[in-house]
């Protein structure tokens, strides 16, 4: 018995340890990530009456999105704005990533870093700075006036859709550059040598090899940009003024001033579904990618 005892106890100890491992590693994310997400989905089906949340299931919050006020139109406008920013930023980022990719290896790191560095400048201060640049008496207007490019300050620069567009584009540009550059960086060096060897001009190599292989990065950059711009509620508020009533702002306001959590949750579910749709679409566009 004495001989048998030790391994048995050992087994039980191991089992206990493994159980603890599963509990910690699966339990913590479950507790702090999955349950919170589920809980706001649940809240979106509850009823708000006289400022009190009642545990009566309803679809009224979702109905409100489609019928009440301007929720739907703001939603569509915001999707449009985010798509616009995504399109422009992905185009710019592809060009910038290609520019970096075509430098010597020694230079690449430095240039990439200089494009990433603005990410580490305080977000809120960047927004404010963009606001002061775009303002009616802002640096951009003053500079253009000083140079004689315009006679009157352009008022539409700030507190407009254009202002939100510019601010979002500037704030989130690095998020698209990085994945696209990383995709380019993964292209085996001798693919380009092979292209040239087979007689391709640089533009042909770009079209046939570089851009097709950068597609996963481009898709990732597009998804990042869309998700971040679609969900941002501070930038539109600070540079958009009353014009900048984006969907994210509406959601946030339900948890602040409007204090309608069930409606806010329902709108957030729609926001979440939209971003998941964006991810799914990007994934679908890559379905034809082939393993190496």
């Amino acid at each position: 018995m004495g001989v048998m005892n030790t391994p048995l106890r050992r087994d039980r100890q191991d089992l206990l340890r493994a159980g603890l491992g599963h509990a910690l590693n699966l339990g913590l994310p479950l507790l702090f990530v999955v349950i919170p997400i589920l809980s706001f989905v649940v809240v979106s089906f509850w009823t708000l009456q006289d400022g009190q949340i009642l545990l009566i299931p309803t679809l009224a919050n979702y109905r409100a999105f489609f019928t009440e006020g301007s929720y739907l139109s703001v939603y569509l406008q915001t999707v449009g704005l985010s798509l616009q920013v995504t399109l422009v930023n992905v185009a710019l980022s592809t060009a910038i990533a290609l520019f970096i990719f075509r430098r010597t290896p020694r230079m690449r790191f430095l240039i990439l870093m200089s494009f990433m560095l603005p990410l580490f400048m305080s977000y809120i201060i960047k927004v404010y700075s963009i606001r002061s640049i775009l303002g009616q008496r802002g640096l951009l207007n003053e500079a253009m006036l000083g140079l004689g490019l315009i006679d009157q300050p352009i008022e539409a620069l700030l507190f407009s859709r254009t202002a939100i567009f510019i601010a979002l584009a500037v704030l989130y540009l690095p998020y698209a550059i990085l994945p696209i550059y990383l995709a380019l960086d993964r292209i085996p060096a001798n693919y380009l040598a092979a292209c040239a060897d087979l007689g391709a001009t640089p533009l042909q190599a770009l079209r046939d090899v570089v851009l097709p292989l950068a597609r996963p990065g481009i898709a990732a950059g597009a998804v990042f940009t869309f998700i971040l711009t679609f969900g941002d509620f501070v930038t539109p508020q600070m540079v958009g003024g009353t014009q900048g009533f984006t969907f994210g702002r509406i959601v946030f306001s339900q948890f602040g001033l409007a204090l309608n959590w069930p409606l806010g949750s329902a709108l957030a579910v729609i926001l979440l579904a939209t971003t998941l749709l964006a991810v799914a679409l990007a994934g679908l566009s890559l379905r034809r990618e082939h393993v190496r």
Partner: protein
Amino acid sequence: MQPLLHLDNVSKRYGAVRVLDGIDITVADNEFLTILGPSGSGKTTILRIIGGFEGIDGGRLMFEGRDLSAVPINRRPFNTVFQDYALFHHMTVAENVGYGLKVRGRPKAEIAERVAEVLDTVGLGTLGGRYPALMSGGQRQRVALARAIICEPRLILLDEPLSALDVELRAQMQRFLKSLQRRLGIAFVFITHDQEEAIALSDRIIVVNRGRIEQEGAPEELYRRPRTPFTASFLGDNNLIPGRLAAVDGRLCTVDTAAGRLDATVDGPAPAPGSAVLLAVRPEHVRLDADPAARDGLPADVADVRFLGANVMIELLTPALPGAVIKVRRLADGAVAGLRPGASVRLGWAADDAALLQAAP
């Protein structure tokens, strides 16, 4: 006759490091030329210079009498088979093979026809629709070859294309490469560090070492008559015995060594009498006499006997040449069955089998 390609006194530096030092290489039409050297010898740089992937710091690169130095890669009438094939993984085999024609703007129907033809040539007739990732190493190798020959280049550059294959496949691909080259009648410039491969494939071999050409010639010539210590030891095994040249009489030379006067033969101009030389004797050319009554040759003791399958490698120590291990290769038959470490033997060789080399300075 004008050579197809001529690297005329070409030099190349990376920073302060001189990787090629006045290299002179000609390639004739239809020839299978191998550039053989250890890693770091500069052989890959030579290939990259011909292909246009590297510029040169000195000399000229002439193609049929025209200077190619300023011609960009995509305009050179050469194609390359890369070491790891560099097949585009997002294209099918047919798209890979047809790429060279596509970028030249040929019509689709012509491309399809040529691709089918070339795939047949390399024995991949039905696999055009596959992706390279799903193919074996040997098949990928053939795709890379098909892609390189479809534009009918004047010269194909092969950068150690067989190094990733296992032994059996390698032998098979060697035969295939050789027959393909004969059928196509295109000059092949083949880079390798594998001397057996070089000997099996080539019409001519150029041995490079430390950015310089050591020796060039037909495989058999290089094997039989190495002229430098490097060639002698890099191409197959050789026993090298140092000495001083005593006298020259036509091809026949006499060399003073630690073991006394030994005879050797020399091809071409002999070094001046009195200069330091080496005697190179192939292990298979060393005579070995295990008869205790034998009086000819140098006395030696067997230090080791290694069974290598068809052959036996015997290592001998002889008091006449202190510090030297004499290697002897024999067929593994009854004649060597009784040899054990410690046995006393006598060794020797025919003067014709001892090549005289100038010792390294």
